[in-house]
Structures are given as structure tokens and as C-alpha cells.
């Protein structure tokens, strides 16, 4: 029997249920009967594809998934790979010398340094030392992360197409530099659906850097559903009394009263359903139930007060302060435990055009301990193997100084040709360093990974063939990876 017809029959059964219960409905029974939420999904060719809200468009993964969920620690602004991961002693040796044209090789410049007549090479002000079994070089700015380097899969050969923040970050999240397409989390919600009935499947947490308090803005389109349905939009979790917009009951309405209110709404809606037979009404009844469940489950999940002291110590002192990156990492773990599919963090402030040494130290301090703690916390709970953790920004930074280079100070402009990100868990190779840049840290010399390749690889770990998860909009089958991208098999465990 066709799925459409079958779904329709389910709907009919629900309708029969409603029409039989003339004296009102026990809502507990109702919600368990509906078992989640229903949605009418109107495809653009006028075909009704009705499906359960919790279910994605893909009947089954394309191949066995390694990861069930993703925690993406996005570092907004473009962290400098040269201070953090990509050790280039030559840059210190040749400090102050002009970047050779043969290395720059026609790379276009942003409007911020295109007027500069000198491009003095500058190495990291911070030391590097070797860590882990492979003796991986890590910056002294990241002491905690250095200790867990054997868990990480570090990619030093990331490259992108955009050279400015807005297009670059939009490109990372949506596969297109221009706004309008769905972001990664929305694609996953669309493709894979939700794993729980009480929380949104795609959540977003923001924090502001202390290294540079005001750097680059964010845009809600970065967690927007684009042309997918609004059901797939990321739900921002915020610190404060209303962790999700409009979540809190108004003052003067308590839980018991709210419950009764929803029962009355459901009863009245059910009468309408009897009268009009529109399945959309039963969908709405189910959505109200999900909303009610969220009102309980969201405050529960964001309440970190019952975490033991050793966990706070692990994540660092910031973790007790809501809204910080560390607190968000802890919250991310709690959301992961509740099987939220895609947990997107944004940490702002990584745009070090000037005063880089001071700023980056602050930024690194914000994230280092909590990042390492999150990974190890997931590991100790047996969750790292099916959780893919990603850490990285939208592009890298130049090997030459933006502005005047002094003995103690310099800045770096945007650099799309190479930068570093790392992953952990979720079926990627631990203890791996992938890709190489030249000794100037300017060009990739081995194993380049394009943003689309990264996206394809991430989807692959979730069991999705990036070429097969498509959405037809205005006649075209869109993908997260546009028409590009290949899975980087070398990274996979």
C-alpha cells in the first residue's frame, strides 16, 4: 500500500477517534495516540506528502551512520590557525620580511589590506610544543585541548571561497555565499527528523568572546530554514528566564492551569475537526501537546544547577556563568544526552585584525578548557563515539601583519586559502593530523579540504549521501553541498 494512502488511513483512524469521543478527550490519551506531531508537507508540485513531524524525509540513512548527533562549536570571526594550530617556525625566522609574491601568487585581498604597500611576515608570538602519541604541535594558548590531542582529528588544509565574514560564514552554514538557503542543522532536521518528542531537534547557543567583545555580528539566517519549512529552523536557547522564545507561561498562569487550558483548546479543536474533517486540525492539536512538553523539558535541560562540582571544575569556572561558551558547552552535553540532533554553538570575537596577541589570548581562554572538557565528558559517558564534535571558524588568517608590525603587536587579515579546524568522535579518526600547508603557512601543499568536502564528510558520518539528500525548490534539486563536495575518506575511522 502506498505510504500516502497509509498515512491517510492513520489520519482517518484519528478522525474516527475524535468523532467517537463526543464528551471530550483525555489529552494524555490523545497525545499518546497521536504519537508525535503531524505535518502536511506540500511539495511544490502540488503533491501532498504527509508525514510525521518527528520523521525526516529519508526513510532510512543511505549507509550505516557513525554519528547520531553533531555538536558544532563554531568560532565566529576566523580564528588564526597560525597562533593556534599550524606551527610555522619559518615565519618567526623571517619576521618582518616581505611576503614573496611567489607565495601570495595572485590571492585577492580584502579591502582592508589591499591598500597596504607592505606585507611583513609575522610568526606566532606564542610558543608551540608537541603533544600526544604523535607529537602533534599545539599552541601554548590551548593547554587543555593540547592534552586531549589524541582524541582529535585535526584538518590543517581547510580552504574556502569567500574572503569576508558574511559570505564566508553563510557559505559554511548553507553551502552558498548569498543568503537564502537552509543551514546545516535545518538540512539535518529535514533529512533525518527528530530523535525526541520533547525538545527541538536543532538548537542554537550563542556566546560572546572576551578577547574581542565586539567583533563580527551573527545573523539569524545562520540557523534559518531557507526554503525548507519553518519547522526546520534552529531554535535558539538563551540564557535568562526564557530559554526559548515565548516558552515561559505568562505571569499568573501556573502549570496546572496551563494543562487545563490546553485540554480545553484540544476539546474545542476536536469539535472543529469533526465538523470540517481537515486533518490540519489534528496536526495543530498535536503541536500544542509538543509545545507543552517543551515547556517542561526545556527548563529541565537548561537547569545545570544539579551538575556535580567535579563537572564544573572540568568545564572551568565560566561554566557556572550562564551564556558563556563554557556554560554553553555544558548545556550542549545535556542537550546531546536528550538526543537533540544538531547542537550549534557560536562563539564570537575571533576577528583579530589588530592587537592580535592580546585578543587571541582572551579568545583561546574562553574556549580551551570547555572544549576539551566537553569532548572528554562525552567520552566518559560513552557518547563520544556517536557524537561528532566540530571546532572551527569560517576562514583563516594571513601570515603577514595587517597594520604596522611592532615588537609586541600585530594583526592578521582574512585568509581563505588555508586554515585549521578539528573534529572529534562520531567515527572520525582520533589522533589524526590531516593536510599540510607550506612553510609560510599560506598555501596548502597536501590534501586540501574544501568547505563542501567538509560538509559532505559531516553528512556522511550521519549516514547521509550528500548528493542524495535534496530538496526541490523552484525546479531545482538543492543540496547542502550545492553541486560540489566529496567525502574525505581519509578522515574516517
Amino acid at each position: 500500500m502506498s505510504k500516502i494512502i497509509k498515512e491517510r488511513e492513520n489520519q482517518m483512524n484519528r478522525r474516527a477517534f475524535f468523532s467517537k469521543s463526543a464528551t471530550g478527550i483525555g489529552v494524555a490519551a490523545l497525545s499518546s495516540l497521536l504519537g508525535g506531531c503531524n505535518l502536511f508537507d506540500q511539495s511544490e508540485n502540488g503533491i501532498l506528502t504527509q508525514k510525521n513531524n518527528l520523521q525526516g524525509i529519508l526513510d532510512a540513512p543511505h549507509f550505516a551512520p557513525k554519528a547520531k548527533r553533531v555538536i558544532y562549536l563554531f568560532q565566529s570571526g576566523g580564528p588564526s590557525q597560525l597562533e593556534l594550530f599550524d606551527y610555522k617556525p619559518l615565519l618567526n625566522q623571517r619576521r618582518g620580511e616581505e611576503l614573496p609574491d611567489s607565495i601570495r601568487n595572485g590571492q585577492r585581498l580584502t579591502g582592508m589590506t589591499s591598500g597596504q604597500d607592505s606585507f611583513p611576515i609575522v610568526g606566532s608570538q606564542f610558543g608551540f610544543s608537541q603533544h600526544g602519541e604523535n607529537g602533534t604541535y599545539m599552541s601554548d594558548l590551548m593547554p587543555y585541548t593540547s592534552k586531549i590531542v589524541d582524541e582529535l582529528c585535526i584538518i590543517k588544509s581547510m580552504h574556502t571561497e569567500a574572503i569576508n565574514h558574511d559570505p564566508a560564514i553563510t557559505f559554511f552554514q548553507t553551502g552558498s555565499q548569498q543568503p537564502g538557503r537552509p543551514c546545516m542543522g535545518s538540512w539535518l532536521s529535514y533529512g533525518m527528523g527528530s530523535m525526541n518528542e520533547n525538545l527541538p531537534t536543532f538548537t542554537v547557543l550563542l556566546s560572546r568572546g572576551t578577547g574581542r567583545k565586539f567583533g563580527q555580528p551573527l545573523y539569524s539566517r545562520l540557523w534559518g530554514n531557507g526554503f525548507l519549512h519553518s519547522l526546520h529552523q534552529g531554535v535558539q536557547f538563551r540564557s535568562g528566564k526564557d530559554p526559548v522564545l515565548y516558552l515561559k507561561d505568562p505571569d499568573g498562569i501556573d502549570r496546572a492551569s496551563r494543562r487545563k487550558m490546553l485540554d480545553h483548546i484540544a476539546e474545542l479543536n476536536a469539535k472543529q475537526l469533526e465538523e470540517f474533517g481537515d486533518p490540519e486540525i489534528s496536526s495543530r492539536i498535536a503541536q500544542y501537546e509538543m509545545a507543552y512538553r517543551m515547556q517542561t523539558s526545556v527548563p529541565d535541560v537548561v537547569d545545570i544547577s544539579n551538575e556535580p562540582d567535579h563537572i564544573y571544575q572540568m568545564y572551568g569556572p565560566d561554566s557556572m556563568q550562564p551564556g558563556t561558551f563554557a556554560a554553553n558547552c555544558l548545556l550542549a552535553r545535556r542537550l546531546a544526552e536528550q538526543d537533540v540532533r544538531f547542537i550549534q554553538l557560536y562563539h564570537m570575537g575571533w576577528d583579530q585584525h589588530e592587537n592580535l596577541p592580546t585578543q587571541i589570548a582572551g579568545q583561546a581562554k574562553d574556549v580551551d578548557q570547555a572544549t576539551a572538557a566537553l569532548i572528554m565528558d562525552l567520552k566518559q559517558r560513552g557518547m563520544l563515539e556517536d557524537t561528532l564534535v566540530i571546532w572551527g571558524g569560517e576562514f583563516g588568517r594571513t601570515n603577514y601583519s595587517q597594520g604596522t608590525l611592532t615588537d609586541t603587536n600585530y594583526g592578521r587579515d582574512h585568509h581563505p586559502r588555508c586554515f585549521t579546524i578539528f573534529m572529534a568522535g562520531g567515527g572520525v579518526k582520533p589522533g589524526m593530523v590531516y593536510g599540510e600547508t607550506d612553510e609560510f603557512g599560506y598555501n596548502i601543499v597536501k590534501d586540501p579540504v574544501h568547505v563542501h568536502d567538509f560538509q559532505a564528510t559531516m553528512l556522511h558520518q550521519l549516514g547521509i549521501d550528500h548528493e542524495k539528500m535534496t530538496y526541490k525548490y523552484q525546479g531545482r534539486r538543492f543540496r547542502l553541498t550545492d553541486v560540489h563536495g566529496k567525502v574525505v575518506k581519509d578522515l574516517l575511522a
Partner: protein
Amino acid sequence: MISKKTNISTPLVLVSIIVITLLLLFPSSCKTDQVISSSSIAKAIPDKIDFNFHVKPILSDRCFTCHGPDENARKENLRFDTKEGAFAALGKNKDHYAIIPNDAENSTLIQRIFSEDPAEIMPTPESNLTLTNYEKGILKKWIEQGAEWKEHWSFLPIKNSEIPEVSKGKINNPIDNFVLAKLNAQNLTSMGMATKAQLIRRVTFDLTGLPPTLEEIDNFKKDKSPDAYEKVVDRLLQTDAYAETMTTNWLDLARYADSHGYQDDLERIMFPWRDWVIHAFKKNMPYDQFVTWQLAGDLLPNPTREQIIATAFNRNHKITQEGGVIPEEYRVEYVSDRTQTFGTAFLGLTFECAKCHDHKYDAIQQKDYFSLFSFFNNVPEEGLIEPYGAIPKPYIKLTKKEIEETLTFINNLDTIEEIPLMVMEEMPQKRQAHILNRGAYDQPTTPVNPEMPKSILAFDEKFSKDRLGLSNWLFSKENPLTARVTVNRLWQQCFGKGIVATPDDFGNQGSLPTHPELLDWLATELMNNNWDLKASLKTMVMSATYQQSSKVTEELLEIDPENDLLARASRQRLSAEMIRDHALATSGLLDRTVGGPSVKPYQPDGLWAETIGGGGGSLAKYIQDKGSKIYRRSIYTFWKRTVPPPSMMTFDATTRDVCTVKRSTTSTPLQALVMLNDPQIVEASRVLAYHSIEKENDLEKRIGLMFRLATSREITSDELNNLSSFFNEEKSRFEKSPTAAKELLQIGEYPQRELLKEPEMAAYTIIANVIFNLDETITKG
């Protein structure tokens, strides 16, 4: 250009039943393909195959990517998008053919699609595309029946459709003839007419975006004259609210916003243009003139200020101030945006797909894209806003004096001395446009000039090679697309879905019209009536088809889940704007001021501030307005593109990043949270309670009044019992906990009134809130 056999009505008359079945069951998403192949119903292949309705959608969707219009992507030099290509001899020796009419067996197309050899089968496994047995059957049968070829339906001239005669059913005007002809052929009948209350609710929302008042409902019910309904329609079409609602739709299309849209997302002032649009709709400016002014007002002879203001339409696109961008890259982006907007809004074509390469599905080459691009390429503008916060050139300054004296349609509410407005201007020395290799700003190749594709309509000498010529081409009676695309959008406004379900795609990948002759009849009427939009809308809402009940039976739901046949009215949820406006109007809070600067109603704290970088100027922090401004219609809500109003986005408003002509309608838990907890709704509940307490003096009457205001109908006794028992429960709860009552009544800025004791007032507020949360309340009816 067009073959002689262009009668698109033929197939419908012949095979309407099958066409319907096909439209209902012929999906193109990968998931449903498999669903359909296993369905027994889908196996019924029509007796007579029609190229446009059955064959082309398959060829386009599964074959064109490699065998279509894009020359660079074309494999084996085989193309199915033109007749010559599809029937051409193939191979080195020119000894075989993809399609041999009447000889399916020897047609390589058939051989390849039925092949089981992975090296042979088409589409190739790598394409991730497949054909179902049904689709293969269609292609085979089409060839067996002679492989008749037809040009794409929407590029054929608009036909003066003959009105079909029908034997049964209610006929108000020719729309009903077209709809009933198809219904009767299916042996289906209408579900009957809506009640008067439902009808006035529906038409008032569709034409004005607001609910009818009780007085309006009562008057309509009382009026037994045959033209009672027509009087309602005529009245609605004269209102400011009508103009505002038409404008609301136009703002999506025109990607209107109050901010620049990229990075720091600074404020811009475009409301004088929005006020002009309201003004133009109010006075029912003919659509051709309305659009011509917006596209080319500055190029008209001795343009008036009003005509120049209209051109701000093409400056509504996003503009960046991000220091460090390469200005030319962004300037090209702005011109591209205008190109895309023109394609989507006026031609219903996805021109933007031909920016980087020839279109994969439609007869639009990359050259065509950049030829259209060149019309919009001569604006003396810059890619980057410099210095920070500057007003992007070109712009005009509207003085307080001229607004008071001549441009009175602008509501200069804040009495600004001088309002800058970005407008279009043509450079005396035109910028030579080029094809840009892969769409990249820094890779110009062949120079191109203003021109439009011949496949649509030749851009011959009578059209000047500028935006004004483009507009004249657009509104030429021979243009096959403009009127169809326009009436289709109006139809969508009234019926929830276009006759072509993809108002943004009339190309090969778009939906086919469910009622092609009706579409053409409406398009012809529009042109014959001098592009009179009100007349078109009136015809639609006067039809019996529009006035049907939205009730549906299981049987009909099974046969026609999407309501393509229109045996009933579609039960439509209100739009984001309507939902909020409804609560404001019902409670009496709505401020009816028309136009003026955008306003900032309630919004959760901190949303703007938490995402800004260092900049953002006046938009760094959301400073909520006070007083009546927070009760204005939602069309006036301030639109910051990078953080649009969250409650509106939850109800499927568009981001205004690009031209959009269709919104999706979803049902999500976040919507429930908005309706239950947004202070705007909670406050409206309280004020609705005040109103009912003042008007009526007992519980049942008060509940009945609130219910009727929200749903436009009388409450039933069951419903009344339900709500009054809940009222009593809540009242006693609040009596036990007077602080709770106090807290609830404090929500919102509207001053509190002491009409009753607080616990009772609070209980009424709760009941009003329940009523606002009913599915029926946010439904048109």
C-alpha cells in the same frame, strides 16, 4: 516560433480524468517516486498521452540535466529540450535515434531507460535520478502513439479560451464553468456553499487581511437582496485595509526591508516607497502602469516625483557595508538581485539559474541572463556603503514641504524635515555588460546588450533598449507570461494556491496549470480590462467556486487531497501578519493609521543586541515603541533582515532576502508558544475581555461575544459549556491566588481597567486567550 498545433485545451478535454489522476499522483520528489511505483492506482497510464502534461515533466526532471538546454553540460550531443534535438540522428554514423515515432522498440531512449545494465541504463546511477515504471510506461506509450511534440505551454500565446458549457452546478461567472466542467467530468460535485458568516470572514481576510466586524456580519446576514455579497465585496475593495493587504504581498515580492541586510545590517529608510505602493493599490492603478513606474519611472518623459519614488522598488535589495569586501563583487550582486526579482516576480521564471551556466531546464541561456542583467546594470551605484552609515547612491531627498503639498500619500508621521530615498537612475554613459564566466564578477567574457529571449517574445525594434523598453515588452499583449503570472498570484491570494502551484516557476520544472483554459481566460480578462486588479479579484471572489464550503469528506480527501479540482474551498490558515492583526482588531487595540515609518512592537528582549558585532548603528539594540505604535498593523512592523521579527518568522513570513511570491504554511510547536505566551496576544486577550465585559452583562453572553469576534460565528452550547466551566475553575483559582490574577492583568502596556474584581477579570482574560488559540481563530474559514 510556435507550431500550429498550439491548442492547449485539447488534451484537457480529451483526457481530463487522467490528467487529474496524474496531477494528483505524479510526484517528482525522490521519496514519493518509490511510493508511487508501488501503488496500484498509479499504474493506470492514460489512454492518450499528452506531451506537455505527461512527457515533458519527466524529460525535464530526469533528463535535462545532461540532455537539456545547458550546452556545456550536455552529454553525447543529445538534447530533449528542442524538437530538432530530440528527433536528431545520433552517433558517428547518424544511424540511430533516441525517439522514432511509432517505433518504441527501436528508439534508443526506450532501450536505455528499460536497460538493466548499469553501464547502459538512463538516467545513470551516478545522477541519483531514477524513473518509475509508470514514467517509463508514459514515455514508451508516447512514442508508440507517434511522439507528438509541443512547445512549452507557458511560452505559447495566451488563448482566448472558450467558456465550456456545463449541465449542473452553481454558476456565478465563467470561473465556475471551467471548474465545473472538470468536476463534472470526474463525476464530482461541489461540497456546497459556505454559510454567510464563513463567507464574509473569508472574503474580508482575503481582501483586507482583517476579520469582519460583528456589525458587518450582521448587516450581511440581514441583507436578503441578491447583490448582498457583491455589496460586501465592493465595500472591501474600497478600504485602506485592502490596499494594505495587497501591499503586504507586494513587500515579499519586492524583498522590502528596513535594513540593508548584510553583516552589520544598518538601517535604511524605504517607507515612502511602501506608502506609495499602498496609495497605488488604493486607487487601483492599472497593473501595467503600476509595474512600469516601479521598473522605469525615472525613464518616463518628464518623470514626476511620484514616478521616481516608485523606482525604489529596484533598490530594495540587500546592500553591504562590510569593510573589506570588493565593491564590484557586490555591485554585480545587486544587479543580479534585480535580474532575479524581475524573472520571479513578472515572468515566473527562474532566470537566476542561468547566471553561472545555461539554464538546466528552461530555454534560458547564460547570454539571456546577462542580457536581462544589462537592463539593470546602468545605475550610478557603489558596491560598498562608504563611509559607514552613508545613504547608498543614487537617492533623492523628499522634503517635508513637498510631502505636505504634493506627495500626500507619504505619511511623514515623525515630521522628518528631509527623507532620503534610494531610487533608480540611469547613467548617461552605459556600463557595458558582459557574460560573466561562472557568474564571477571578475571574469567578464562576451559583451551583451539589452535583449530578451525570443522563445518568450522577440525584443524587436519597437522596444527601447532600457528599462522602459523592458517594461513595454513585459506588458505587450503578445507576452505569454505576464498576465498569466499575475492572475495566478491573485488566484493564490484568494484560493490559497495558484492554478499553477508554483507561482515562481512557469518553466519546465514548474507545476502544470490545473485549469489551463481558466488561467488563460483570466489572463485575457485582465488585459482586456486594462490590467484592473480589483476587477480580477472581484471576479474571483464572486465566483461560486470561491464561495464554497471548506468542509471535506473522507472520500473527497482521498480523491483530491490537494484540492486541485476545487470541489470545496481550501481551509487556509491565516498568514503571520493576519494572525497578529486579527488579535489586535478583535480586541479593539488595532491602530488604523496608514503608512509612515516602520514601528517596533513587542519583541523578546535582547534579540538584536546579542547578535551584533561592534556596529549596527540605530539597529544595535531594539528599542520598543510606546503607545499606539505597538498596535499598528503588522505590515508596519520594523523589518531588520538579519534578525527578523521572531513571532512572524515562526508563522512562515519570508526573510525578505530575495523576491518571494509564495510562503509555506506549517504547523509547529513554536507557533503554539507564540499564541499562548507572546505578550501581544496575552494583552489582546485582556483587552478583548474588557470589551466583552463592557458590552454584555452575563458570563454566557460575554463568552459568546468574544468567541464570535474571534471566529465570526455564534458559539454552540457545547462550546459555551466548555468555556464557562473553565471560566469558573479559573475564577476560583484566581480567587485563591489574587497575586496570580494581578500578575496576569499586568501584562502589556494597555492601561488596566477595573471593570470587575481582578480574579474575574483574569478568568475572562484566560478564556479570551483560549479563544485566540483555537485553530478556527487562525483560519480564514
